[in-house]
């Protein structure tokens, strides 16, 4: 019995020491950083003047309100007017805006981020560029002119430019909106892959979504990609 009591008391010492260490670790890890921030914020909020009698409150508010109105008008002018498209390349989604209202949103597919290495001097990165692009041209029943990578990734020999094997109809859907540098918004035969990052840099959409985007965005519309 005495032996058990001794063991229990020693155990109590161990527990007390561990509890003390944990308590001090918590103070160091959690409490001190909080106190640091509180002190920092307090020091940065200090000011020599608290007297506001010298301030012409009404005049200052009037002047600030006027300035705010002007700034708000300028900010308003920055938003693209009629219609624009926003594409999220991480989540592979899109939002179509008209008159500053979302009129359609859904899934799309963007670049796969595959870096295809041909040899030490040649490689292709299938990435959808981020930034703002413009709809430069719109076509119906687009025909795909296959670039070199389309053959390389299939393990096929690359034909000469303009060769008939480069032209392939009925693979880009019913519509295409050209964004420049070979990038397009178009349809696909592989509808089940929409929502995944599987393209070579273009933006693929489901047929119905593509039709609405095509009909809503005139040439010159902005396409924001992030």
């Amino acid at each position, binding site marked *: 019995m005495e032996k058990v009591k001794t063991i229990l008391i*020693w155990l109590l*010492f161990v527990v007390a*020491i561990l509890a*003390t*260490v944990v308590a*001090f670790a918590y103070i160091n890890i*959690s409490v*001190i*950083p909080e*106190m*640091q921030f509180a*002190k*920092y*914020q*307090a*020091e*940065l*909020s200090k*000011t*020599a*003047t*608290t007297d*506001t009698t*010298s*301030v012409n*409150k009404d005049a*200052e*508010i009037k002047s*600030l309100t006027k300035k*705010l109105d002007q*700034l708000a008008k*300028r*900010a308003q002018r*920055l*938003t*693209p007017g009629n219609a*624009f498209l*926003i594409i*999220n*390349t*991480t*989540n592979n989604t899109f939002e179509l805006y008209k008159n500053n209202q979302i009129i359609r949103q859904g899934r799309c597919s963007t670049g*796969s*981020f*595959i*870096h*295809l*290495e*041909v*040899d030490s001097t040649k490689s292709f990165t299938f990435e959808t560029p*981020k*930034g*703002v692009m413009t709809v430069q041209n719109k076509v119906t029943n687009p025909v795909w002119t296959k670039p070199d990578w389309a053959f*390389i*990734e*299939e*393990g*096929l020999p690359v034909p000469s430019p303009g060769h008939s094997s480069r032209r392939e109809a009925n693979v880009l859907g019913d519509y295409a909106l050209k964004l420049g540098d070979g990038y397009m918004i178009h349809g696909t035969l592989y509808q089940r892959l929409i929502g995944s990052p599987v393209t070579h840099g273009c933006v693929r959409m489901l047929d119905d979504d593509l039709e609405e985007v095509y009909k809503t965005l005139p040439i010159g519309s902005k396409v*924001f990609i*992030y």
Partner: protein
Amino acid sequence: MKEILKKYKFGFIAFFTILVILIAGTVFRYLKSMDAVHTAANEKLLSIPEAEINDAGWNIPEIQEKKKEVHWLERHLTLAKSDSLNLGINLTDSIVQVQLKGTVLFQAKIQKQDPVHFFDELNYGTYLDFTKIAKITEEQASIEKRPLKRIQAPKNEEEAAKIKHDSIPDPLLIWKFKLDNQIEVVITGIGLNKDSVVDLRYKENMLRYNAEKIKQKLISENYIPTLYIWLNDKDAKAIYRAIPERGKVVFRN
């Protein structure tokens, strides 16, 4: 009593020695930490014109509110001149947004923030400094900004057919960045647990982040205030991948 003290002398000595060491260490750390805060605050205040620090109108709530709105719009318009995607952290409305050319492309609701009141009480001068357009100077993240998958071009059709495009899901995002106005931001993605319920591990994350800092330097002579933000992981990743390296950030509070 005397007997107990005698019998467990070593136990008492060990306990009190450890207690004294911990108290001494913590007091020393506390004093050094507060010194670092004081130095950092002084340096900041010295870099700001006194007239701005002591702007009297700032003490009137209606004027303060209007001025904050004016500055937010001014920064927004300045950023709109740039061709780069930039980040807006609006603590007033608990929103993080990606902007380009004056258009808000994406916004995510802040699910949790620590400190809860991050710089909501500043004098006018330090407020201007806090909300100026800042540039990311250092950053690190748990995922790649550009998740490139390297593939060797196949030599023939047979080889091409063998290429698999499996992708491993990314871990939850932890994105830490420092700004040139001496503020650090840590954005953490919130995932779903095995029952598909939102799994916010705020306390666990905070303990880990603070412990990491102590591990890096037990007693730091520099102090940088850190804002911790928790966002839905999908939103957090979209924002992280949208903002270019050395991107620009603007706060509103």
